[in-house]
């Protein structure tokens, strides 16, 4: 929809153009920002004009630009030793949004919107990816994606900061993974999304999203027993409550998925 309060859109071409302030927001793909009225927003700084390469491979990471579209992420070719690569498509398919939205929506935008069912948050949390944050005066800091999303519509971004990139450790892509998801309707908004990851060093992590207001990670130095996993799940509070699923249902399916994943990766 037209954002009737917006008086100016600046397309950022260099880092110095990224100046946010009162009423001025960073714009990624725009598929969420333009989907509802934005009272108080008077200006937008379009980050897609910065021309960041969608993905860059370094020695030990896959660096995904915040402006990489969901479509481009699904087209990143797999390496032979990346069993976790299949999560890219599984998570994109977990979005409520159709493939047409993937053509415009960005990975960074999905994470920064901080919705419990944001499947890019699921993906990047499960892969222990790091959020690279740019602040004013050319400052830069890093925080795990699982901590970057702090709650429903709440992130760790401070005034003037933007999400620049997500660094996915290559080691995480080399992990074995298991994936479970459910929604109240077949192609609906995720009610629970659970990803298990068994790394080469034997460590085991279960990442829960959609069922909780923010990503929850259960970490084990080695594959847990059923009892150990159950005990860790007991500590989760609260379970998310909205029209897309009751908290007790989300807890029940999450517990089931976690145990299935434990057995699958054993």
């Amino acid at each position, binding site marked *: *929809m037209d954002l009737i309060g917006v008086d100016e859109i600046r397309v950022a071409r260099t880092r110095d153009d990224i100046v946010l302030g009162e009423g001025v927001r960073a714009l990624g793909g725009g598929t969420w920002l*333009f989907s509802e009225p934005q009272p108080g927003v008077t200006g937008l700084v379009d980050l897609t004009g910065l021309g960041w390469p969608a993905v860059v491979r370094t020695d030990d990471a896959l660096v995904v630009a915040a402006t990489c579209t969901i479509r481009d992420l699904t087209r990143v070719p797999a390496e032979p030793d990346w069993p976790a690569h299949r999560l890219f498509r599984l998570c994109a398919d977990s979005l409520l949004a159709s493939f*047409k*939205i993937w053509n415009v929506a960005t990975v960074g935008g999905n994470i920064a919107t901080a919705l419990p069912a944001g499947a890019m948050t699921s993906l990047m949390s499960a892969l222990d990816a790091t959020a690279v944050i740019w602040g004013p005066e050319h400052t830069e800091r890093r925080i795990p994606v699982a901590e970057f999303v702090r709650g429903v519509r709440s992130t760790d971004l401070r005034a003037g900061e933007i999400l620049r990139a997500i660094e996915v450790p290559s080691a995480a892509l080399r992990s074995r993974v298991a994936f479970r998801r459910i929604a109240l309707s077949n192609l609906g908004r995720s009610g629970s999304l659970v990803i298990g990851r068994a790394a080469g060093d034997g460590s085991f992590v279960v990442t829960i999203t959609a069922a909780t207001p923010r990503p929850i990670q259960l970490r084990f130095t080695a594959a847990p027993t059923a009892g150990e996993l159950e005990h860790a799940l007991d500590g989760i509070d609260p379970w998310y409550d909205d029209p897309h699923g009751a908290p007790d249902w989300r807890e029940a399916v999450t517990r089931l998925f976690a145990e299935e994943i434990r057995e699958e990766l054993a």
Partner: protein
Amino acid sequence: MKFEVNGEELETEVLPGQVLRTVLRQNGHYEVKKGCDAGDCGACSVLVDAEPVHSCIYPAHRLSGKHVTTVAGLGTPEDPHPLQQRFVDAAGLQCGFCTAGMVVTASTFGDEELADLPRALKGNLCRCTGYRAIRDAIHGVDNTATPAAGEAAGRSVKAPAGLRVVTGREEYTLDFTTPTKLLHLAVLKSPHAHARIRSIDTAAAEALEGVECVFTHRDSPATLFSTGRHENREDDPDDTLVLDPVLRFRGQRVAAVVADSVRIAERALALITVEYEILPAVFDPALARSTQDGVPRLHGEKGAESRISEPGRNVVAQMHGEMGDVEAALAASDATVEGVWQTQRISHAALETHATRGWIDADGRLVLRTSTQVPFLVRDEICHIFGLLRTPCASSRRGSAADSVANRSS
């Protein structure tokens, strides 16, 4: 800004915050529909550089140098795209408001999408629920016949307007350019579930450049009416005013601004100052219908002339009915099941924008073109509320978009 639409260069002004759909429609590309306006229904789907997008959430400032293809660019009634012809042959359309988006989206499908249509089309909603026929259309199933003259009865004939609909040529309510200057109306909505307007100050809104006028309850006719319509107007209770000083639900219209553009009209809403007396509200249906003290009576001041079923219990209407001798049937049954079943109120979400355009024609008649399934009844009620003389009403092919004509009284 310059970009290409259906192979032709378009140079146009783009305002900050505008989306592609608005820019296309402002330039006469009415084949691109405004549905949900939130990226969900897909009626506005177009191709940008061959990739399908929802144009209602595509920021227009990115258009420079891009190539846009709409459903009208895919084919014409004389030379339709094969998929457009298939939608006609399969009867894959009913009201047709979703069809443009369905065709554009499906035109990009490869084997993967064809194998999983529910997923590939989850960004396209049809509210006539014609998904089976749409699936048939995409898979090339022919559900229609072309019988010879006089032999059509009982046969599944093609929709007469089908080729116009599938190529985006059919005019819906807002799909035409008004001969006179077009003004836009925006509505200020109540933030309270139950309140009385103590005072309302519209001076600042009226002073905004581009604002033509502002209406409040002070301008409203005193005639009560129902927003529901049946052939006999007395089937519905007279429970509301065009603009009522008492607000009985959150979102009820408080004031209306008429301005040169939607943008100005909506901005002017923020300049209206309203002082509300907040009244007690009730949200529990059982409590609302009780006679308990302290439960607000939303229409308590209205009498029998309003035809509200039980104003003292917040019951606006009730219906009881049975067919045949239910008691005897139950008595004779081998097994019976007893229970109380209830359902929520359901509002059908029509895709077409709820909209009306009005103008005064050369004979001085007020002409209203509105999206409604009951144009004659809407005309009659508008004449009743505003004291107008009624004149003939014309309806287009569709139930959900029709012209309504009413004469101005002296």
